């Protein structure tokens, strides 16, 4: 740890703080949505389209309705209001209206007394549908098609979003380049594969209110969407987030089944639960976009980056989801961690008749990073510069501005490079390990929270935290930040305890409940630590001021002569003189009762004013440099990652246990994508909708990980912190790809890098007669 000399130290923050809900989770007592049972609860079930693309002429639900034990059957016409996570691209409906757009699209729903009856009812639904052409390949959708998937596709095509950006003069830069390289990357779609399937429980009560419990990362957007589609004002809807068994972006869209569940509860007057099976989860997807990108980089003779020229075609599946953002991100998240003076990007996201793509951990920043880092590895080789030196030479400076006007504040990228190089023993290993073994460098850059909230009307803070402390001295914390396992509840409690000087045990983070939790925009874009952390600090500072005033009155000294000690307030110059936390609290409560405070955080305006300028702006950025060491079995093509040295700049790590956990989990997920995971399709049909056929890495496949936290305090982050939730994934992939090149001399630009591709690469190299490391 390299917190700068003179930087403040804290009692709790910076330690290893076990998760506050840990005891509930290890005993099975934590309550997830499927653990909720309501009296008289019905089972909701969804009928999914067997067609990739079809016009629905009519649906006959009479047989299903007549079945004893069936309480409601719904089709799309009842709630046709379109919705979607981004206000500008509302193209989903709760249940398909007029058309089904992928195998798995919801076409009808039932609520029944039990599972068996619900299944039987679905089997009785008769759909008269006319199959339409399927469009599984985004390339087809780039030109006019016979039957556009959505009417809003660009000029009769299936293009959902096109982004064209040009900063500086890319052609001139390439004309003057000493070295140029082009990498064309192909990336299979991957999915979140969280262990908890989606689940929702809804209950409409005779007082005109609706309560929805759901496994969601973003309770507030769900709240809005329920209101919009069901036509019920938000104040009559209560959204509760139980424990969530992982999200990684897959539970960040408001999802159709959540609205359907509420609609069924309204129709029947009974509580309804919809629980997904694993196939439902795979068909709902919203995973990382299958991507083709084309990256050209120009370098001058001294190894300075002159320009990037990037194109990307990304496969959006049936809905927009976060896709407009994804389209921008696939270009603009290339703007760091290096200085890029000239930049051109053309990105297109194309609807296809497949399960929707969406936001997945390190959203939009992963595939483009792989191609850039592989390109830089090639350039380093061609220019005869060490890969570390090449990157160090081009590092973004602290307090600088990128050519597309991203504001860069803190960066410890150079420290990341130095730490990874030293710890990994790079100089003794690169090109020096025996044939079949190698090391590779990959770097990363990610937003520490999206600077722009998705909804900007009405104007409101990105995060608000409420505190209440009564005479018992317990501090209740309310916020709609969504802990999905990353430890945000723990961090929230720790920040409050740190500011007030009290034991962590006094602080109780309350379950997210829209009736009482002030709005925080939830867990996406790696925003929680930065934004909720600042809001929590602001709220706690207010309580602290009240306690200091009370202690001052008790001690007959001005409050500014006092400071917070452990469970007490004391004189700054004479800490022996003081009062206990409880004495100060009770004094402060005289005549007013429980103390309350509300703190909030709003991003300040940053970035340019051109179209799309807000995409990728953030109050801070994380940086990473990873070295991977791999061993390849050249007979079987099997790859064994042996160790990853992960140098990461998350500013000041506030909970080391959580930061390590995020990095280790990110590496697991990154290894899955680079080495094996694939959403596999034949045409538009998903072939592997199960965890048996869609394999995530097992414990045996995890390499040793050495974590190097080298960040310095960020000037605006809470206590100097930045994100560590998503950025740590990104560098994993190119570190592996570049290590494979070092091991066997084969460049892989198609992911995942499976054994058959390794063997094909080795064959090609042999045919071309290019020996590598003497083999």
């Amino acid at each position: 740890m390299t917190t700068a000399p003179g930087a403040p130290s804290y009692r709790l923050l910076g330690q290893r703080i076990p998760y506050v809900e840990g005891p509930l989770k290890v005993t099975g007592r934590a309550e997830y949505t499927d653990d909720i049972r309501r009296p008289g609860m019905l089972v909701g079930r969804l009928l999914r389209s067997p067609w990739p693309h079809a016009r629905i002429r009519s649906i006959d639900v009479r047989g299903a309705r007549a079945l004893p034990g069936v309480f409601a059957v719904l089709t799309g016409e009842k709630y046709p209001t379109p919705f979607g996570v981004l206000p500008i691209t509302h193209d989903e409906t709760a249940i398909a209206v007029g058309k089904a757009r992928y195998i798995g699209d919801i076409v009808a729903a039932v609520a029944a007394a039990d599972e068996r009856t619900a299944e039987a009812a679905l089997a009785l639904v008769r759909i008269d549908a006319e199959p339409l052409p399927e469009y599984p390949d985004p390339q087809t959708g780039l030109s006019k098609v016979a039957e556009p998937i959505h009417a809003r596709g660009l000029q009769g095509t299936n293009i959902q979003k096109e982004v064209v950006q040009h900063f500086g003069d890319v052609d001139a830069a390439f004309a003057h380049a000493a070295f140029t390289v082009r990498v064309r990357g192909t990336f299979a779609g991957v999915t979140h594969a969280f262990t908890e399937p989606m689940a929702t429980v809804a209950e409409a009560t005779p007082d005109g209110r609706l309560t929805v419990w759901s496994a969601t990362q973003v309770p507030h957007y769900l709240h809005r969407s329920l209101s919009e589609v069901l036509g019920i004002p938000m104040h009559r809807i209560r959204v509760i987030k139980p424990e969530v068994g992982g999200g990684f972006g897959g539970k960040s869209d408001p999802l159709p089944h959540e609205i359907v569940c509420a609609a069924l509860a309204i129709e029947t007057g009974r509580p309804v639960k919809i629980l997904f099976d694993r196939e439902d989860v795979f068909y709902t997807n919203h995973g990382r976009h299958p991507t083709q990108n084309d990256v050209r980089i120009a370098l001058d003779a001294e190894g300075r980056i002159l320009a990037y020229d990037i194109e990307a075609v990304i496969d959006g599946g049936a809905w927009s989801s976060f896709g407009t953002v994804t389209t921008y991100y696939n270009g603009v998240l290339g703007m760091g961690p290096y200085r890029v003076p000239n930049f051109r990007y053309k990105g297109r996201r194309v609807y296809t008749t497949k399960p929707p793509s969406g936001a997945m951990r390190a959203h939009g920043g992963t595939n483009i990073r792989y191609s850039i880092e592989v390109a830089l590895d090639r350039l380093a080789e061609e220019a005869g510069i060490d890969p570390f030196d090449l990157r160090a030479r081009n590092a973004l400076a602290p307090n600088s501005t990128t050519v597309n006007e991203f504001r860069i504040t803190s960066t410890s990228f150079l420290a990341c490079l130095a730490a990874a190089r030293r710890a990994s023993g790079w100089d003794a290993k690169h090109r020096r390990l025996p044939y079949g073994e190698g090391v590779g460098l990959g770097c990363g850059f990610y937003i520490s929270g999206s600077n722009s909230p998705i909804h900007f009307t009405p104007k409101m803070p990105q995060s608000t935290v409420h505190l209440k402390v009564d005479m018992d001295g317990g501090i209740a914390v309310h916020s709609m930040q969504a802990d999905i396992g990353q430890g945000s509840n723990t961090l929230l409690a720790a920040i409050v305890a740190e500011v007030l000087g009290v034991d962590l045990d006094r602080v109780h983070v309350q379950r997210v409940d829209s009736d009482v939790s002030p709005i925080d925009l939830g867990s996406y874009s790696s925003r929680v630590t930065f934004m909720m952390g600042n809001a929590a600090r602001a709220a706690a500072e207010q309580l602290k001021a009240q306690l200091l005033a009370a202690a001052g009155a008790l001690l007959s000294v001005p409050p500014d002569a006092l400071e917070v000690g452990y469970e007490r307030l004391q004189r700054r110059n004479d800490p022996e003189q003081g009062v206990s936390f409880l004495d100060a609290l009770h004094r402060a409560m005289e005549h007013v009762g429980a103390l309350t405070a509300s703190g909030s955080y709003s991003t300040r305006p940053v970035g340019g004013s051109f179209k799309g300028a807000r995409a990728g702006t953030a109050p801070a950025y994380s940086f990473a440099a990873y070295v991977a060491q791999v061993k390849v079995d050249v007979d079987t093509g099997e790859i064994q990652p042996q160790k990853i040295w992960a140098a990461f700049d998350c500013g000041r790590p506030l909970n080391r246990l959580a930061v390590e956990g995020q990095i280790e989990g990110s590496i697991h997920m990154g290894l899955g994508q680079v080495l094996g995971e694939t959403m596999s399709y034949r045409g538009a049909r998903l072939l592997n909708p199960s965890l048996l056929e869609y394999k995530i890495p097992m414990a045996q496949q995890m390499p040793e990980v050495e974590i190097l936290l080298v960040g310095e305090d960020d000037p605006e982050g809470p206590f100097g912190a930045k994100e560590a939730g998503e950025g740590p994934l990104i560098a994993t992939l190119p570190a592996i790809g570049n290590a494979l090149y070092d091991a066997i001399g084969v460049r892989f630009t198609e992911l995942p890098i499976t054994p058959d591709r390794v063997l094909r690469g080795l064959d090609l190299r042999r045919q071309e007669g290019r020996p590598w490391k003497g083999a």
Partner: protein
Amino acid sequence: MSSSEPLAFRLNGQPVAVPCEDARILLDLLREDLQLTGTKRGCDLGTCGCCTVLLDGRPTLSCLTLGRLCAGRSVDTIEGLTPPQGLSAVQRAFVELGATQCGFCTPGFVVTATALLRDHPNPTREQIVRAISGNLCRCTGYLKIVEAIEAAGGGRTP
């Protein structure tokens, strides 16, 4: 034995007799009929290990086990492996060492680890990794889970 007779077995140390249709899956019996919701449903296909329970002391996927197969046998769930007050050594290690994040896979891992430590009080890293190869975790990358089991085994629980 037919569906009409109650299913008798030992559940978390206590004898029970409950109605159970022939096709009833142990996971459904536990979660839906007996309200033991600590055992988690992740895939219904024996792939994720979230539903792991002990059947006669051996880690078993309750989603692939017919309730009727438990007749006369002993089933232990996460509820039964938790002391009335506080936590077991494995549970304590999982908490202290950050081996649980979202927590959904955690009961399955704790059950598996408990059985391993009964057979091998001081397991090697390889034994631990082999033992948990039937449990998937998407949050932790397994490293802290292995560390926690190792610590609990070595009596090094903080």
